[in-house]
């Protein structure tokens, strides 16, 4: 743990229902959500209900290293139900790396997380979230972002080892001059992924982007519903790309734009198809087998960002 403490500003690790480690350096308050709810009365305004597990992260000052969180399930039929709250104070910039995973491929586990992230005025958050599940697990990941004036959010969300059923929800509201960029990359195989990304541009000069990269492998189904609503005069863009790898693959992408302000500009682009034969043949001409070429293209499509 000492090594981890050297390179992190704060860390929360929960295995099954038990907190295994929790620490924070100066500038960050990190508590379990039940403790925060009990001891910091103001947090009750943000928790929708009394939490039973999860973390509360309060970033009060700029910190040098990223904050990390990890939820792992290692025992069969475990149910996790964390409620998380993150508050980044005014003018503070920080990074959070999160992992939610199952330690084994067949645990028949369930993970339902509800998170809320408050970015105060002119704060900045870079968030990377990785999911890695077993093939019989059920997962719901729901997160709400509230961006105050001038706040900036960059979110990268990736899952290449999906559960049996995965529901991902995000709702983001943006005040004046704030911006939120979402990049989500998922691969579905022998299961279902359902995504709902809603972005509300409430403030003037706010901007938001939803970029989805979806790969549907055999016996899988992905449905994505992306929506940007502009009440203020901002800019929004939805970019959905899907790849079908098998005859039994399915992707349904529904981008929706609602513009209630004549000064706002909302756009979207979407394409779903198979891997280009031209690209495959090109890589095969370099000596890669068809499977190796597909793997390389898929890896590139989902993005090369790693933890």
């Amino acid at each position, binding site marked *: 743990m000492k090594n981890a403490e050297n390179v992190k500003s704060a860390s929360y690790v929960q295995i099954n229902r038990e907190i295994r480690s929790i620490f924070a350096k100066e500038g960050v308050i990190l508590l379990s959500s039940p403790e925060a709810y009990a001891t910091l009365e103001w947090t009750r305004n943000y928790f929708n209900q009394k939490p039973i597990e999860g973390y509360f992260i309060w970033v009060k000052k700029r910190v040098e290293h990223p904050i990390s969180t990890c939820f792992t399930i290692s025992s069969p039929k475990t149910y996790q139900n964390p409620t998380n709250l993150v508050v980044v104070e005014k003018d503070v910039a920080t990074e959070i790396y999160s992992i939610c995973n199952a330690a084994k491929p067949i645990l028949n586990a369930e993970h339902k997380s509800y998170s809320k992230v408050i970015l105060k005025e002119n704060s900045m958050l870079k968030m990377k979230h990785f999911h890695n599940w077993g093939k019989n697990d059920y997962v719901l990941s729901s997160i709400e972002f509230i961006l105050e004036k001038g706040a900036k959010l960059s979110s990268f969300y990736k899952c290449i080892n999906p559960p049996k059923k995965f529901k991902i929800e995000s709702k983001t509201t943006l005040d004046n001059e704030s911006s939120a960029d979402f990049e989500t990359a998922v691969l579905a195989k022998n299961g279902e992924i359902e995504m709902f990304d809603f972005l509300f541009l409430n403030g003037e000069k706010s901007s938001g982007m939803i970029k989805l990269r979806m790969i549907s492998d055999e016996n899988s189904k992905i449905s994505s519903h992306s929506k940007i609503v502009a009440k203020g005069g901002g800019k929004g863009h939805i970019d959905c790309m899907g790849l079908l790898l098998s005859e039994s693959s399915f992707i349904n992408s529904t981008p929706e734009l609602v513009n209630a302000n004549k000064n706002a500009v909302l756009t979207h682009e979407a394409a779903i198809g198979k891997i*280009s*034969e*031209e*690209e495959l*043949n*090109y*890589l*095969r*001409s*370099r*000596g*890669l*087998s*068809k499977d*190796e070429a597909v793997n*390389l*293209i898929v*890896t*590139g*499509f*989902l*993005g*090369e960002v790693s933890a």
Partner: protein
Amino acid sequence: MLLKIENLSVKTYGKEVLRNISLEIKKGEVHALLGPNASGKSTLTFSIMGFPGYEITYGKILFEGKDITHLPIEERAKLGIALAFQNPPAIKGVKLSHLLKAISKQPLNMNHFLSDNDLLEREINVGFSGGEKKLSEIIQILSLNPKLAIFDEIDAGLDVINLEKLMWIIHDKLIRSGVSLLLITHRGNILRFLEPDVAHVLLHGEIVCSSRNWRKTWKTILRYGYEKCRECKERELCPNQS
């Protein structure tokens, strides 16, 4: 014999594009394949490489004596055939350095080719200039350490300085190492620089001339046009025809 093509006929999209092509390339030889647009040059390279959609209706392709006519693309590449594409596709999200790591058969000192590593860290052919695409192709070919390198219009769209740079790389790293080359072109600069041992003229899907005197062939083309090469045998415009 490194590559031997015997009486090859090829159909693509239901149309016969190549007819009765025969061609032999020995180890270390440099061959040029000349021809106007739509004469079948790229069809021949894709057929040698084994791309789907190019149906061999007659004849065969031998590489080092092995019949490769129906081998998959990657097997041909593993045997030592490498193709530099005229218009390589963009592979989004995959950096050139990652591809090189996956395919490389020999370490390369990139300082010989690049002033910095910027190109290596970019997505393959995404936003590459014409010169960068050609350079990327050559770096990939070199990393494959091939026995036969096929360059499909490597000179197309390059300015003189970039062309000269690439020609030096081909000369220094391939020809001097004994790698055989098949150069597809319809420009004279590359011929002057690389001095092919044999120049073939492909016209309407047929090789109408194969000469060991590329200068004479090129002069004929410049003076009379490609069509004149069809009459070559009768008028003896290519006296050194092999």
